[in-house]
């Protein structure tokens, strides 16, 4: 009689472990597929990179900056560049799924649909971080600013996670419409205002050598925003993609 609850418990644990295993397998499969397809076509990364490089070049020619002015506008220029380049990436990443009905192919798989969201978000984050890794040294050379500070890199990581968490969810909504290219920025930019403000303030703080205690509220805001929007996306993704 006492064995029965134990057996049930074991079965439940086994099923839960299998569920987690399946979730991770499908997650890695989608990330692998996105990276393999991008390695072949290089459509997404090249578009993001060319756009981002053009933006910082235009800023370089448009603004004659002295050393003091540079430390105040650098964060703004960087985050404007990341946000616009990121939008191109988000649009392209979901358009690739829609092109040959592949999004339906993903949704037909017997996996937890949040695995699809997380995999697409991680893929988008990887592409965004690659672009940022190329933009940062280029910006450093053009503007003679040292951007390789651990605190600033942490802000860029947290800001990118928040941006991608919301962006992936909204791009999966926008991709269902005919005006997806226009709709995504219209939906996305108002929602990422808190991320942009916090990221710009925290980045400026690190660039100007402000005390950590003054930067911490912005870092907290970024972290809380990331957690909230990842949780929201986890809960609503299934409803967003289903008709």
């Amino acid at each position: 009689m006492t064995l029965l609850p134990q057996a049930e418990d074991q079965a439940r644990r086994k099923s839960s472990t299998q569920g987690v295993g399946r979730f991770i397998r499908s997650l890695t499969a989608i990330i692998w597929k996105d990276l393999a397809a991008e390695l072949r076509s290089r459509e997404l990364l090249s578009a993001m990179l060319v756009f981002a490089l053009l933006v910082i070049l235009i800023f370089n020619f448009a603004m004659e900056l002295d050393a003091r002015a540079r430390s105040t506008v650098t964060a703004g220029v960087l985050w404007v560049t990341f946000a616009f380049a990121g939008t191109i990436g988000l649009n392209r990443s979901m358009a690739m799924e829609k092109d040959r009905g592949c999004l339906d192919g993903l949704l037909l798989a017997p996996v937890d649909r949040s695995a699809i969201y997380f995999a697409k978000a991680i893929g988008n984050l990887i592409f965004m971080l690659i672009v940022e890794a190329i933009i940062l040294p280029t910006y450093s050379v053009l503007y003679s600013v040292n951007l390789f500070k651990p605190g600033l890199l942490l802000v860029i990581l947290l800001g990118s996670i928040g941006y991608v968490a919301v962006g992936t969810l909204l791009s999966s909504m926008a991709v269902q419409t005919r005006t997806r290219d226009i709709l995504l920025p219209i939906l996305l930019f108002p929602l990422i205002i808190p991320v942009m403000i916090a990221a710009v303030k925290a980045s400026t703080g690190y660039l100007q050598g402000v005390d950590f205690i003054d930067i911490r509220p912005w870092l907290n805001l970024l972290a809380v925003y990331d957690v909230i929007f990842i949780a929201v996306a986890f809960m609503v993704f299934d409803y967003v993609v289903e008709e």
Partner: protein
Amino acid sequence: MINVRKLVKRFGLKTVLRGMDFSVEPGEFVALLGPNGAGKTTFLRILASLSRPSLGQVTIAGYSLPSQAAAVRRRLGVVSHLPLLYGDLTAEENLRFYARMYDVPQAHKRIPEVLEMVGLANRRHDLVRTFSRGMQQRLAIGRAVLHDPEVMLFDEPHTGLDQDACQMLDTVLREVAARGRTVVMTSHDLARVADLASRFDVLSRGVIVASVERTQMEPDNLLAFYRQALAQG
């Protein structure tokens, strides 16, 4: 195998399916016929768990939708007029990706078998975007049968194919059905489905208006049956 009762699907104010009843026995091959806008694709998308019913009951292989959608999806293979394949991956990479998504056991043995079945074994390392429409559709069938589903749903699979590609697709479809799978296929091409299906249902204005077994019908009489069904519906 498939049971649908009083199914209603609304998009805003527009009602596409109006209390539809439908059932399919295991191993049956049902051709769902009907004019454009009758609700065929909407109905198949509900069966595939890509769309939620507004009202009514849908059960497939004993599992109800949408509450047990994951269990239903595990038993379904779906082919539409879009291939659901990635152009920048090879045929083999596409199947490997879907094998991981469906947790296919012994995928390294199953993938060559499926490529052989759809006649693409010698093109397995080629990118899908270099394939003709017919080849993509055959690979799409390979993708759909990879996990050996009990139920197959085909949504106008012949769309955009030339005569040779259609014939080749029919051969693959017959092979899929011959393995005892339950098949539901929507089509406009009556001549083509006449040879494939074991039962013909006509969907018009969101309900099934007529149904006939192939054995109960004179050969070459499908067009007359279809016209009569639409006229009465």
